[in-house]
């Protein structure tokens, strides 16, 4: 459900600017209750930050090991769909990019054999499938939505992507970017979605995978690339856990 008084991810922007990468302690521990109790302000933020980042990388590995490529996310009926579906981005709803579907071309790069750009009509000519699944946000709320589009696995096979590569990355028209692991990209419920409730949720093309948190579902995708070099992501680079599996 939509939180009543939530701090939208967008509400973090001023904080992010201030905190940049050294984000874990500055306002938390030094002002927080723990320092009052311990009498210690832990001035050496960097050491604690490093420890937390190391644990986050460790959790990436644990989650990759826990990921079962054959395990399907629960699906729901049309009656369960959350309306209105919460809008969430690092910017306000009025700032969503407006993209001309006629002129749109999906770009491909990296370890992909056939890098020819794709028009929407060409994408729609591929076999389509639909899902009603729960989107879980890193903020804690969840909502059930319906998405329809091309099975991402089918698309990656079709363009001759190196399926043994480690990462699939996304560059978006709203300057957002993210990346996922190849096993999650190949999961049967990972969709390159063309149809969803409203353009503001990512027209003309977004990724939908119920096996990861909402922020790992990039919208307004302009380019897809396959790589072995860790591409990071908009929120991931600011300290959110990269794998963020569900």
């Amino acid at each position: 459900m939509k939180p009543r008084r939530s701090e939208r991810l967008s509400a973090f922007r001023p904080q992010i600017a201030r905190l940049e990468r050294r984000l874990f302690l500055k306002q938390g521990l030094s002002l927080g209750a723990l320092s009052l109790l311990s009498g210690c302000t832990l001035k050496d933020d960097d050491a604690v930050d490093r420890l937390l980042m190391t644990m986050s990388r460790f959790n990436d590995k644990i989650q990759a090991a826990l990921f079962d490529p054959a395990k399907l996310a629960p699906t729901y009926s049309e009656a369960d769909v959350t309306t209105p579906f919460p809008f969430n981005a690092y910017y306000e709803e009025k700032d969503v990019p407006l993209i001309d579907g006629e002129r749109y071309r999906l770009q491909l790069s990296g370890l992909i054999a056939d890098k020819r750009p794709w028009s929407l009509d060409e994408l729609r000519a591929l076999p389509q499938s639909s899902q009603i699944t729960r989107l879980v946000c890193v903020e804690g709320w969840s909502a059930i939505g319906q998405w329809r589009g091309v099975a991402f696995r089918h698309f990656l096979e079709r363009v001759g992507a190196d399926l043994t590569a480690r990462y699939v990355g996304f560059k978006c028209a709203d300057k957002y970017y993210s990346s996922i692991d190849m096993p999650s990209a190949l999961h049967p419920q990972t969709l390159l979605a063309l149809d969803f409730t409203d353009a503001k949720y990512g027209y003309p093309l977004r990724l939908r995978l119920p096996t990861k948190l909402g922020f790992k579902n990039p919208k307004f995708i302009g380019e897809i690339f396959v790589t072995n070099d860790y591409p990071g992501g908009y929120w991931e680079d600011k300290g959110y856990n990269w794998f963020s599996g569900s």
Partner: protein
Amino acid sequence: MVGGVDKPRTIHPLFVRVTHWVNAFAIFVMVLSGWRIYNASPLFDFEFPKDFTLGGWLAGALAWHFAAMWLLALNGLAYLAYGLVSGHFRKSFLPISLRGAFDDVLLAMRGLLDHAPGRYNAVQRLFYIGVILAVIVAVLSGLAIWKPVQLQALTAVMGGFETARRVHFFAMAAIVAFLLVHIGLAVSVKGILTPMFTGRAEAPR
């Protein structure tokens, strides 16, 4: 009495003391970072005061939470294994009786309840077993909302994702309620806090 009447005796085994204080640290980190995570999308009509949270913002709080969860879970498993195998739980927490707890509460209200070192009264036994169960529920409901796809059977047992979130919240609330009483008594009842560090009863009875 192990060491004779004059020598102080060990009333808290070393294993229990170490796991207790590691657990106390882990619980504090989990609760304070958890409050910060809660604030990102409050379930109810209130938020936790920011100065009493850990992590600075959502990503920081999550990083603390997902780091300390390992400490909490592994230390907790070690404590449970020790308690079951060594007979510590049987000796210290059993028998439990509601009747006994009720009598002890009445005695306590009249100021007559003795705190005998090395022996938990009936209320303590119930509370300790209760908080151990609350921590177990917190860990399981936490796993259920962390991995609602991979661990979907567990999430289903917890009533689904949205219900599991609430279970997680109330497990936290139960732990915090226990802590208010527990810490209040630990610092106010004479001679019980030091032994939890040293293991030794302060004055033999």
